């Protein structure tokens, strides 16, 4: 269920780091909690993000959920398809990224493995 090719935060976001580039998204649990996603505020290309910065905000009709970045670095790509079709995150949270960041630092201590994240979900149930 929970992809094992990436890591997770306690705030229900995922991050996949390859060749110094972090790909960021939200988990299936996060999209389900939000409900119908109506807007994703994408960061600007070249924006400098620090660990803990809200790099995006995901909106449903009745909520706005800021998403904190577990990595620091420069935004190099955003998922522009979300601009027109934010519901992609509802349909495939693990298949759709939000942004890619050229990593200068990772908040390793606070990242969970798939197994640990699954345990967290079970705990929160």
């Amino acid at each position: 269920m929970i992809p094992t090719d990436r890591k997770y935060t306690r705030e229900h976001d995922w991050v996949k780091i390859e060749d110094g580039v972090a790909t960021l998204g939200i988990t299936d649990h996060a999209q389900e909690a939000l409900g119908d996603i109506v807007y994703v505020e994408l960061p600007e290309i070249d924006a400098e993000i620090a660990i803990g910065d809200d790099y995006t905000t995901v909106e449903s009709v009745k909520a706005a959920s800021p998403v904190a970045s577990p990595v620091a670095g420069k935004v190099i790509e955003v998922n522009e398809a979300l601009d027109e079709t934010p519901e992609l995150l509802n349909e495939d949270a693990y298949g759709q990224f939000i942004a890619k960041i050229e990593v200068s630092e990772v908040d390793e201590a606070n990242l969970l493995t798939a197994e640990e994240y699954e345990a967290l979900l079970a705990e929160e149930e």
Partner: protein
Amino acid sequence: MRQSYKLIFERSHEGRRAYDLPALDVPAVDAIPANMKNEGKLDLPELGEVDLVRHYTNLSRRNFGVDNGFYPLGSCTMKYNPKINEEVCTLFEDMHPLLDEDMSQGALRLMYDLEGYLCEICGMDAFTLQPAAGAHGELTGLMHIRAYHEHRGDTARTTIIVPDAAHGTNPASAVMAGFKVKEIKSAPDGGVDLEALRAAVGPDTAGLMLTNPSTLGLFERNIKEIAKIVHEAGGLLYYDGANLNAIMGIVRPGDMGFDVMHINLHKTFSTPHGGGGPGSGPVGVKKHLIPFLPVPVLTERDGMIELDYDRPNTLGKVKNFYGNFGVIVRAFAYIRSLGGAGLKEASENAVLNANYIMNALRGVYDIAHDRICMHECVVTPTEDMMKNGVHTSDIAKALIDRGYHPPTIYFPLIVHEAMMIEPTESESRETLDEFIDAMKAIAVEAMEDPESVHACPKTTPIGRPDEVTAARKPVIRFVKE
């Protein structure tokens, strides 16, 4: 019942007109330079007067106000709006705001007198009538707090403490006033958690914003201790006047220890809410904040009311001119109609009506905090109803079909599935009884036929609208095909 309704733009026929002007009696001139001239034709509807009148008359029939029926929208104080006040406010309509002071003494005197009445009702030392709405009053009040600390050179006080039960405007206003927000959790009884407050205050505390009675409709019994904690930490106490309708003539914010506050004239003092405004949000302050009031300040000298702009420590201005004067006149008329005893009577009956409803709904719905409430009560669907798939939004829609405006729903945020019911004093006992019966009938329906509740509203021009599509693909103006 279902029936969509054309936009006024869709009723347009080229060449029709509803206006006329006298023939021009001076020479026409072509004075606007070519590069700044609008050579095109504005895209506005063209229709005859009768069609325009029918359009808006019929639109009004697709709307629901206090004059149509019971409107127990919590925190909004939807009391009756006296008709006489609608008439007397027009007496001042043609007054230009920049008339010389000796030409506008009546209007200035009226504002000056109202400021005095509000000081007496609230136990404050001065009022400004400038802010245009409650949230605008909050911002203005917080600007006083900021100016006060800045003036003392205490630049470390950058944080406003806000309970998690507060209206969303509180934290938003604090940020607009340039503060950081520290949210503190409420105690189990919905009041301020004194330990959390003690832990939150410090040398960075600029102030605390508090609604009392709280957004749960409960009086904050520890208010003296709260004031002491905040003041001893060097902060100021801000009173959100959204719920002032519970306490007129009974207890005053100034006597509770608040330094600065706002009033929603459109709530407590019966001015119509206008479908979302105009409101009016006067701000009251204690003596130590008077130097920072926005300009102009009304002062009396030799029997004349003057507009004083010469205030070296003023925070500036928060809108044009002096405030929403038309709203101010209505509130003035209301206060003069009722007098001190009448205002107290209004508050007492507002509180009586709320308790009457809460008491009657006990056992049918869950009561968030079951103790004597002030002017509003918060109830929730029972576990069984929710297990049956009926939630607060469904109950709200079912109320619509029974001819009521629903209560405020899903607020305060700290109560899951909240319904906040504020009946106000202007409702009769049988109106309350009928509403209670409707709530009980919906509770039965929720258990016996939840599908029927989900199908509500059935009597309205539209069914439940698709809010997701509205937000995903915003269409926010009419564009001709």
